[in-house]
């Protein structure tokens, strides 16, 4: 078992790609993407979606991969240290704390959602979630909602005292697995697990996809509710949506969050690559894997299945119910209509979601663990204990303040959205402007088998930062005022923001301690030394 970070490195090229893809492929690919597409012009949504992929997702990904490997060459693995070295700026080093804060704070609630998936998979495997096949759709939806409310403690605060102890146990199991995998290290833990989990996830998705595409017209009384029309609901284009700014923002947001850029994960993972590894091809392959899951499985399964059994109005209502509504309330109703195979398909589906979630959540713990080891110089065991302590506090608060998931949503708004945009912009600016696009270009191509097309220099320096800042500004304009007012009016939301502030303070102190330590060790944290290849 790996006991320290000394000499950690990815074992194979495929290993790092599957780990980064695993980090990116999550619930959003299967549940958020189809809702966003159907809500924003169906097939027409794919035009802004692919534009955002080419102009935003791929270049930011390349920048992160390149910066990560550059930091790894200098023996640096955390976002603060790497951003400080890349930009030769102390301010950027401290702003890099966001790159540790984001994955750590998101892990507080993400592992809890992961526990829901595990709980649903377990219940489907052992008989279902109480949705009766013979009941009316209204009764089925009520039963599914009731199960969800009970499993997540959404009715009242205090999940541990509301009969939801089972969910707590599922969370505990998921959390222990996460910590164990991260503690085992990059190659022996994360890489080995993702190398098994990713193909398993693809197999599970394929089983569900085949079942959905062979549903035909299950109810002869509703001949219009068939697979082809279900696909049409998702893919028929409405070109009018292309003239709306909201559509373009939704596409940019989907690409941004789906690829896990701006999360502080890729920069950490890439820092464990070999010096001559191909970051250009690796970055593109990880991105393409995420797109494969999102478009092929997310785009064909969820809404098609919903349409076939619930019809147009039921599916529209499902999309309006958001990611959680679609995943945890609508789909159990859909599975109840699939006959004797329904519970099996339900178990496979939620197990797949669990795998998607766990490959993402381990990537959230790793950057924090690497940062504590690097900044404090403690043993891996001691840093893991610190990480567990912090996560227990954060996750306990998420689970205790479970009513309507207010605490969870507040963290998701401020950390999972606002700070992610901020870090994405900071990273791109650090790469293109502080480090310099020409230097970055040269660094990216070291060991690269394919060349990045020349126009990406302009994209990375001007287009992507402008695009990102414009989307971010639009997003703030639409949401920030409401969010601030909501925080000021609600003590639970204030507590969530307070937790983020305290955590930020802790990470800043660690960075300060790390700065002293790194200088004593003679590490090139200011990026002054030129690499001799």
């Amino acid at each position, binding site marked *: 078992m790996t006991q320290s970070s000394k000499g950690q*490195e990815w074992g194979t090229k495929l290993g790092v790609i599957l780990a980064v893809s695993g980090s990116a492929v999550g619930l959003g690919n299967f549940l958020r993407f189809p809702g966003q597409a159907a809500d924003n012009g169906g097939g027409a949504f*794919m035009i802004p979606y692919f534009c955002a992929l080419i102009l935003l997702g791929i270049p930011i990904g390349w920048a992160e991969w390149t910066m990560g490997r550059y930091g790894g060459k200098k023996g640096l693995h955390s976002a603060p240290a790497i951003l400080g070295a890349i930009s030769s700026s102390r301010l950027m080093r401290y702003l890099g704390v966001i790159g540790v804060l984001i994955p750590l704070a998101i892990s507080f609630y993400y592992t809890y959602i992961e526990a829901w998936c595990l709980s649903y998979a377990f219940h489907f495997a052992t008989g279902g979630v109480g949705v009766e096949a013979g009941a009316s759709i209204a009764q089925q939806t009520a039963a599914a909602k009731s199960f969800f409310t009970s499993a997540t403690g959404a009715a009242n605060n205090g999940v541990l005292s509301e009969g939801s102890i089972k969910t707590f146990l599922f969370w505990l199991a998921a959390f222990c697995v996460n910590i164990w995998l991260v503690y085992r290290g990059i190659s022996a833990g994360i890489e080995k697990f993702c190398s098994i989990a990713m193909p398993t996830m693809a197999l599970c998705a394929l089983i569900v996809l085949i079942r959905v595409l062979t549903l035909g017209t299950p109810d002869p009384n509703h001949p219009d509710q068939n697979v082809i029309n279900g696909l049409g609901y998702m893919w028929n284009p409405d070109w009018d949506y292309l003239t709306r700014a909201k559509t373009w923002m939704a596409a940019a947001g989907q690409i941004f969050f789906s690829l896990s850029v701006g999360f502080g994960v890729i920069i950490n993972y890439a820092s464990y690559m070999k010096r001559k590894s191909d970051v250009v091809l690796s970055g593109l392959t990880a991105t393409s894997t995420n797109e494969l899951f*999102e478009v092929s499985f997310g785009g064909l399964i969820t809404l098609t299945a919903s349409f076939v059994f619930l019809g147009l109005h039921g599916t529209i209502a499902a999309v309006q119910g958001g990611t959680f509504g679609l995943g945890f309330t609508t789909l159990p109703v859909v599975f109840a209509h699939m006959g004797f195979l329904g519970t099996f398909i339900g178990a496979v589906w939620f197990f797949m979601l669990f795998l998607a979630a766990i490959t993402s959540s381990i990537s959230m713990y790793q950057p924090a663990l690497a940062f504590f080891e690097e900044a404090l110089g403690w043993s891996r065991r001691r840093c893991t204990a610190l990480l567990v302590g912090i996560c227990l506090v954060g996750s306990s608060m998420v689970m205790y303040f479970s009513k309507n998931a207010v605490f969870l949503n507040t963290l998701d708004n401020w950390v999972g959205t606002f700070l992610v945009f901020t870090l994405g912009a900071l990273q791109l600016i650090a790469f293109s402007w502080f480090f310099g696009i020409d230097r970055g270009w040269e660094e990216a191509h070291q060991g690269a088998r394919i060349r990045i097309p020349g126009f990406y220099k302009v994209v990375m320096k001007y287009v992507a930062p402008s695009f990102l800042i414009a989307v971010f500004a639009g997003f703030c304009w639409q949401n920030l005022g409401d969010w601030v007012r909501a925080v000021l009016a609600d003590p639970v939301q204030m507590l969530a923001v307070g937790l983020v502030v305290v955590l930020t303070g802790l990470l800043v102190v660690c960075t300060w301690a790390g700065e002293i330590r790194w200088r004593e060790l003679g590490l090139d944290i200011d990026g002054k030394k030129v690499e001799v290849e």
Partner: protein
Amino acid sequence: MTLLGWICMITSLSFVWALAGTCYYLMLHDPEPPIEEVHHLHSA
């Protein structure tokens, strides 16, 4: 499903499959870089 719906779906699927296929082909046909000594904090 309209004709344009089919076109959108098939084009999108073809794009992501072609991109992923090309990337994995190139990656799996490229030799692994040699195992090397890397400079790490704890060895400093």
